[in-house]
């Protein structure tokens, strides 16, 4: 072995150790800007309709990687970002989902391969990591997951576990009834961009500073998983960016609410002359009988029949593609907008800087509204404000659309914008 080389290696090790020590408490690079939106991607809307949560991806690594991503809180009354409520997290976050009662939220963070979680105050204005309630950073509140989580679907789970004696017989109460433990939990389905992995995790309910119980299991289901949608209960569908099919799956969850594994339920082939399609996002119809998939190769909207029937081969669950609609460039995420008479699909067109409005019953594009550059996610509030919100990735903004006339929405405000 070369002596000089050995010496150099020793020096390098020492320097690395010193550098690591310094980095452990002081990240290199700039902290993220809490006042503005930058490369906004996924969004979530508080049920009150007053607060919008926007994930900022630190896509260009302008800020330090470890905590350069942010979760902005927007007051929808004043249409302003609330910087004091903005929280930091890892880079390349994508999707944010709130749980059933909006007491907690989850963000998939590709930069540190985590699902970062946070608690929300009842009014949705205060966002914190209960394990470090005074910290701006959510870094203490994250679950390690397999590499590059991106899509995220949420469901609420419940299990009942019978208490057993040493012989495995149910313990009975004074009335002779079995003694049962009821467990409610958040059920997360996660798409990972790498390795074809899909994960399902359970997260227990907690109060205060208690760390929630967490269990996870993963399986390889589809190439380049990108988005996941919940059909009902515990049945999910996943699409991928280089996939040849759409896959339905469900987790096996024990009576103790631990995830035991993932069962593949169905494979829905996506016909294409190419080796794969490029699935971006999934959305079910209200009755769950149709599943819509945005595809960027070619730019299209795919419609799947997911209705249930009896076990007759002719009439049973069709579970395959039934229509395909040519779309403007870069179709991405979707949301339903009701006209009162019918439901319309609003679909962001990333490369068209617009939202396409599809009447799925025809199906055809029956409307279009221009928004900012690189529209990514879209959320709709037809309960309180008759508005839709579109995150404009390339323009660092959120467009506010007035839905008074759902066929002809109007962009009324732009939150944020180019720096």
């Amino acid at each position: 072995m070369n002596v000089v080389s050995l010496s150099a290696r020793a020096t390098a090790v020492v320097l690395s150790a010193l550098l690591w020590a310094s980095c452990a408490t002081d990240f290199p690079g700039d902290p993220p800007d809490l006042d503005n939106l930058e490369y906004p991607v996924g969004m979530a809307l508080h049920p009150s309709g007053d607060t919008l949560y926007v994930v900022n991806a630190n896509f260009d690594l302008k800020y330090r990687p470890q905590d350069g991503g942010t979760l902005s809180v927007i007051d929808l009354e004043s249409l302003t970002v609330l910087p004091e409520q903005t929280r930091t997290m890892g880079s390349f976050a994508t999707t944010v989902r709130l749980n059933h009662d909006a007491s907690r939220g989850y963000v998939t963070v590709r930069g540190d391969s985590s699902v970062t979680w946070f608690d929300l105050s009842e009014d949705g204005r205060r966002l914190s990591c209960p394990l470090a309630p005074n910290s701006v950073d959510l870094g203490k509140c994250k679950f390690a997951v397999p590499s590059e989580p991106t899509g995220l679907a949420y469901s609420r789970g419940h299990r009942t576990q019978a208490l057993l004696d040493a012989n495995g017989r149910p313990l009975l109460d004074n009335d002779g009834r079995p003694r049962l433990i009821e467990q409610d939990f958040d059920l997360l389905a996660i798409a990972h961009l790498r390795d074809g992995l899909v994960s399902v995790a359970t997260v227990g309910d907690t109060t205060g500073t208690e760390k929630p119980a967490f269990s996870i299991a993963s399986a390889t289901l589809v190439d380049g998983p990108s988005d996941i949608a919940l059909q009902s209960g515990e049945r999910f569908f996943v699409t991928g960016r280089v996939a040849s099919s759409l896959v339905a799956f469900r987790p096996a969850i024990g009576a103790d609410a631990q995830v035991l594994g993932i069962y593949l339920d169905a494979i829905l082939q996506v016909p294409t002359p190419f080796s794969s399609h490029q699935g971006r996002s999934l959305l079910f119809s209200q009755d769950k009988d149709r599943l819509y998939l945005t595809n960027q190769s070619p730019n299209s909207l795919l419609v799947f029949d997911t209705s249930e029937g009896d076990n007759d081969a002719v009439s049973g669950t069709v579970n395959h593609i039934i229509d395909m609609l040519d779309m403007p460039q870069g179709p991405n995420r979707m949301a339903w907008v009701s006209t009162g008479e019918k439901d319309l699909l609003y679909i962001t067109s990333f490369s068209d800087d617009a939202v396409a409005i599809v009447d799925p019953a025809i199906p055809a594009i029956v409307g279009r509204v221009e928004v900012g550059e690189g529209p990514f996610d879209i959320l709709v509030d037809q309960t309180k404000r008759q508005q839709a919100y579109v995150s404009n990735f390339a323009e660092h903004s959120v467009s506010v659309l007035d839905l008074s006339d759902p066929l002809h929405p109007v962009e009324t405000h732009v939150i944020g914008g180019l720096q």
Partner: protein
Amino acid sequence: MSWRCPLLPLRPSRLLAAALLMLLCGLACSEDPTGSVVSLRSPATFLYAPNCVIDGSWHRFSDCPDPDRIVAQAFVTNEETASLSYVSIGTAGAKLSDTRLGVPGLTGVPIGERPRDAAATSDGAFVLTVNTLSSDISVVEVAKRREVLRVPTPEPPVKLTPVGDAFWLFYPSGLVEIRALAFDCGAGSNQYDENLCALDETQIAFEVSASFLVEGQPKAALSLPTNERVFVSYTDKLYLSVLVPESSQETCLQSGEMPPCEVERLPGGYGCSDGLDNDGDGFIDGEDPQCYLRGGAESVDGVGVLTRGACNDGIDNDGDGFADAFDPGCTSTNDGGEEDGQQELQLPQCVDGIDNDGDGLVDNRDADCLDSSDGSEDGSSLLPACDDGVDNDQDGAIDFPEDSGCDSFSDDTEGATNSCGDGLDNDGDGLVDLEDSGCSDLSDDSEGAARGFCNDGVDNDGDGAIDLADDGCYGASGMTEKNVERSGLGPMAVDPGGSLYVVDSTEWQVIVIDLATSQVVDAGARNPFSTGPGIRVNAMPKAVAADIRSSTIVDAGGGVTIKRDEAVFYAATTAGTLDVGSVSQTFQRFENQTVTDTVELPTLKVGDNRDSVASVVSRRCLNIFCDESSLPTIELRARPSVFVTDAGALLTTGDDGKPTSVPVDELYVPETWQLIYEGILPNAERSDGLFDAAGGELRFGGNFCSLGVVAGDHVIVEDSPSSQKGLDCGELRDKTREFEVAQVRADALYLQPLDDPTTSSQLPNRSCYPWGTRFTVRASKQFVASGTETGSLLGRSSRGGVCSDAAGPLGGGRFAFDEKFENALFKTTIPTGSLPAERGVGIEFSVTSGYVGLRLQTGPLPGDVVVVPTLSRKYVFVPDGGSNQVFIFDAANFSSFESL
């Protein structure tokens, strides 16, 4: 004509761009710009209009006298660029035309947004486009290459169909408008002269002359060339409407209406799922007592299987070499015999339209009827828990009255009423309460799989209708109340021979309707793997065109020729193929222009691209040495075919005078078959067996009916019993653990000891097998057939936990020595003595397909397919939005031209 400058939202990022663009707009808006519309962008519709261009000038087709100078003209709508492209069709392909002189490369006329459909006036002077995004109609003056009129519509239109001089406009709401184009540019009313006309918006109109409503949501429409009938398909119906114009004398379906109106509905699928009362008994689909499945028929003469009979059983019943739909003697799927003519079909009690047991309930209304093959209305097919011979709650007592939890034989709960909340494994499947998928919640009364949804008095799907009142229920034994919301049908085409072709994107098929009989041609009957009555095409068909391909296939000299007319369709699919379907072939022999012989051959499949046939390529013995002479002959199913001799004779039989066997279709795939004596049933070698506490009841995580288990089969328990002290498992440990199946239910096998002292007389139970066991199911004294691709032929359907007795459409999958074995794929007989009657001995053979579907490569998002007959050749055009091309093929030989 006005042109709008693009409006830009006032955001910082666009202020500069907006200023620059406004400046440009200010310049551009001063005159009518054509924009930068070049090339094709999301081409959707291809329209061939009867006009031509001679030396660069437009002419009516009738004014194009010199064929050598004609360049036919067609059009393409571009969804993304909101434009109409012009296409010049020559003798060796086609090319995009410049739409503005002096602007090379400009190939599109700006029109409304997201144009999809298009139609032309009869003289080809105007092209009209349907624009879904801007919700209007563009009228393009072809000769001047400009949009001359934009007409707003009440809602986004979906289809525009020329009917005579009028246009019928279809809307999602069901509104049908009849409009006509009216103009006068100096040559007289509606007389177009490209030299005289200088139309502006005030000189041309596209007004509504009549309107009416149809019940569905129109998807596509097609007018017959005679303009006497218009066919409409719907996104939400499985039938087609036939509409007639005002001039018709026909009677409208809706009383009190006068034409234009709907006069007829054509079926678009199987009789039990087409939304029509096919047999006129007042009941539609699942309401009809003869309908048990959506793939069924409402009557003997309907489309679909009414009950298993000689023409749908996979067997050559009359021994003429042909089976079922391939047998010329079968006039339909429900013909009672393969002999010539319609034979009476023997109807089991449960499909005979009679209340046989006098309980006031007929056929599928009677809960005692399991399916259309059930021969008795008297006898429950759904066994309640208190009458099923099973200790469902594992309390040691079985059924009523022994089990105190049973109130009667009809009680469906033996034990506690909240068995999903008692912490017990009530159904013995190893899963407790909510772990068990049979439990919906803690208040669920049964851990077992839900059953009898159409006979439980509960509104299971929450739609307000209960059991048979729910149109989702196909009979009282139906397993769901939920109505499958199937999508409707799509684009259509008609061939000159009188067949209508309809795209079914849901089932990936093209349905053929014989317009002479108004009936679906049941192509699915020729393929037991089929789930629909149409011709299966690649996934997912989006458009269809039809044609008759005529060719002289033999010129024998001396004035003897043979001509073949083939009815074909072209289905454009999102799998990137243009599937060429062959529907029928008519061979005609001519002697000096006189027809001397005619043979018609239905083909009903996607065409073959290889000209080879399926065959058996190897045979060998399994688990024993044998010579080839002891191997039985494997005969593949025959197909009728037509031969033409060099001398110009038309033959329908081979040299031996027997029907010719030419199995060339997708029924045969390359695979290997095994016929094994006392073989293991396919998928019945398992590790998930679980016994009940009392013993003898075997369950697993699947359906025994699907495995094809029948009473008499043998179950071999592979594992030794538990060695735990105190357990009485002696015989199970010391003797062979092989048992006979006494009874089969979907979820359980009931075993009994064999009459063999070497085998255990003790039945296995939960105590001896606390963790379950591996087990296999074997046939007894029979061969079991299975293919590597086809799989098992044994599977049976089940309802309410009871297995159907009917074999599937493939035919059976088991047979004994000397018994003729036949199914929809092949037939054979294994004589006694040719092989030893030993378990595991058998034969294996391989089959080649020979079939390669005639599928031409296109793109992923076809919007249309059009056959264009020019003077020099016939083209097929396929615009594809996914690749921004129009693919072009020669219809004569399917060679491709350079795409647009």
